[in-house]
């Protein structure tokens, strides 16, 4: 990455962006929050959720994969884009079985936090009520595919951080599901409790056992401030 910067405009503000950064990273450095879900700062982008879609010179572009270019005019916090993003969040809610009150990730869940941020009351789409597999075989980690949004963070972090390949995908379209590197169950993989992969899930789908419900309501990550407040707080 060079030390050069380029000027881009985000929602009317001119931002100096370091060359080579993605739009999402450059906006983050400038204290501008672009909502995102499958993206995680420690991992390579996956491009699954499309929540970070912005408009670059009028065209919808994925902010977590697009590298900044001088003179880009970017729309981010607009009513149109926010409704499209909210619509994706609603799709993810109806695609799985997300029962927030019974989920130990509640309050720390990025999907739930985005739903709150976008003011989702209930999804505008009909629930699909799919039958999903739960895998509690592993002594330290469980998978609840009811809550999986196929963001691929576990797939990527297992490869990038743990130098393993515990997770993958199977099938396609609406039948696509999270797969594991074993014929039967998670216990048969080489996943260890200390693996980073177990800690990147944005929802309650891949969960370390025996740590749930530790934080009282009111002290959880998104109880006080909406998701993205930390990034927006950096803005000078």
């Amino acid at each position, binding site marked *: 990455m060079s030390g050069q910067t380029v000027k881009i405009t985000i929602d009317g503000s001119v931002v100096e962006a370091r060359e080579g950064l993605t739009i999402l990273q450059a906006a983050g450095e400038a204290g501008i929050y672009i909502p995102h879900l499958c993206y995680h700062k420690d991992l390579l982008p996956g491009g699954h959720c499309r929540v970070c879609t912005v408009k670059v010179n009028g065209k919808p572009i994925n902010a977590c994969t697009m590298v900044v270019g001088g003179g880009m005019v970017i729309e981010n916090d607009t009513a149109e884009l926010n409704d499209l993003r909210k619509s994706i969040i609603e799709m993810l809610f109806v695609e799985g079985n997300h029962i927030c009150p019974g989920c130990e990730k509640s309050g720390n869940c990025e999907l739930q936090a985005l739903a709150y941020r976008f003011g989702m009351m209930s999804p505008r789409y009909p629930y699909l009520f799919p039958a999903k597999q739960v895998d509690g075989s592993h002594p330290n980690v469980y998978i609840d595919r009811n809550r999986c949004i196929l963001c691929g963070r576990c797939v990527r972090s297992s490869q990038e951080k743990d130098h393993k390949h515990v997770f993958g995908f199977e099938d*396609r379209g609406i039948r696509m599901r999270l797969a594991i590197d074993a014929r039967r169950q998670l216990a048969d993989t080489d996943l260890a409790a200390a693996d980073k992969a177990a800690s990147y899930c944005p929802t309650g789908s891949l969960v370390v056992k025996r740590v749930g419900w530790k934080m009282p309501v009111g002290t959880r990550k998104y109880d006080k401030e909406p998701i993205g407040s930390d990034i927006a707080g950096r803005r000078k």
Partner: protein
Amino acid sequence: MASVDAALISRVVERFGKDPQRLMDIVREVHGELGHVSEDAVDSIAGVLGIHRVQVADMASFYSFFDREPGARYTVRLSNCVVDKMNGMQEVAAAFEKAVGVRFGQTTPDGQIGLRYTSCTGMCDQAPAALINGLVITGIKPADVPAIVEALKREHGKVGGSVLFPNAEVQLNLRQAGPVVLGPFENGSAIRKSLALSPEQVIDEINKSKLRGRGGAGFPTGMKWSFCRKAKGRHFLICNADEGEPGTFKDRLLLTEAADLLFEGMTVSGYALGAVEGLLYLRAEYAYLWPRLEQVLSRRRRHGLLGQNIAGREGFDFDIRIQMGAGAYVCGEESALIESLEGKRGAPRDRPPYPVQRGYKLEPTSVNNVETLCCAARIMEKGADWFIKHGTRDSTGTKLLSVSGDCKRPGIYEVEYGITVDKLLQLVGGEDAQAVQVGGPSGACLAPKDYGRKISFEDIPTGGSIIVFGPKRDLLKHVLDFTEFFAEESCGWCAPCRVGTTLMKMKLDKILDGRGTASDLEELKQLGTTVKMMSRCGLGQSAANPVLTTLQNLPELYRQRITSKDFIPYFDIAGAFSEQAAVTGRKFVDHEEAHA
């Protein structure tokens, strides 16, 4: 696991150089031998290749032609494309179910015959069509089915070909040959003319011809080649012969009748790009063309038109490998095609980087349509000045159109760009069309008010699919068919396409069921907009086109179908109670209705 299987798998993996990027070929061969990709086979392939089983399972589960469960000795894959349905596919399906004794999606208990649906097989001009273990059978009538099934019950080996099935001949159905693509051609002429020029001069000539990609997107070919040539690395040329857009079958003709022209275009492109390897990605539905294409390649090698020192030019080496697909429409998208070529699921990539920068094996790659490469050979043979005499100012040359549906003369037409829809309908005998789907489901549905528009990049671009809907068709049903097609073919990688296509299907179901309201139409439009704006690749971005273009061009289709009520829930409570009501002989009373 039986040791014979392990030995077989070792042998296959060795033959492909233990290269994980050849996983498609490895799994294809294993599938061919074992009839399915068993859990044992997955473990074994992963073990010999030294990769993870989840990688093998991921790839093998993605493609519809790979069965993970023990399949049937004979699998009938009946094409369920809109055009097949328009030509009586449902009756044929019923005849198959009756003759075989199982439903579609099932296999006979003795494992002899399995019935499956498959997406458009590229035989719309001779629909309904089916593939039986790769053998194409076209123009099937319900009356033909018992004999076909009887033959399948008797057979125990490989499918016998046209002796077994008299209809197994694919008709070419060339209705109108034009001067550009389908004129007479002398092998080697384009290569010799190109070799008289520098690679840059070849690209200049293509630029001068204003040739644009024939797959539908219309990117200037010369510009693509130039970007690719200038990018540093080992260059690759890929020919996209994965035509899967429902209603498209023009490449079938080119691959059958103009294979030399195509390979000549690929060789010229290889010279221009500085590539030594060309890959032809052939859709699994066209596997029947593979042996003949290999013969043509061998002959060209013998004649010095492929291989080393081509046409006597010292140091000009270029060869072509054919890669078989395995049943996934999305692989027609160039970056998904590249992923597939690398032995992975056909999930498109985010761009940039573009394939011309980092494509196959992350090297500079130009991906071109079959017809584009045929045009390129023509341009080098006859010159850009000759080429631009055809077509319009911004759409030079001619276009092959695959015409199907309600018209008297379905088939392939080579027309000059700029032809109006009206003129085309006269040509094919479809003047009374209530609508025309131009560019397949990912294109646009045009109403008669638009028939004066021109087929060209500046007006209505198309990859070549033209589906004519006659006056009696229930168009909305076909919009649902198209939407189901996208839901089936969505790769699942990104949320808006994966979920949105299924939700659009549900919405259309509700409207077709007579339970739609005005707000459902608004929601359908909103849903379509999310899928179009937010999806990752061209498939997702066009998956809502059947809905959005009919909502815009033919709104009365929808208005006729909706009720005047403000709200009707998805869940049909009266319907859910209908069985109980029938059994008890009591009428279900909806209290909300009763109190309204």
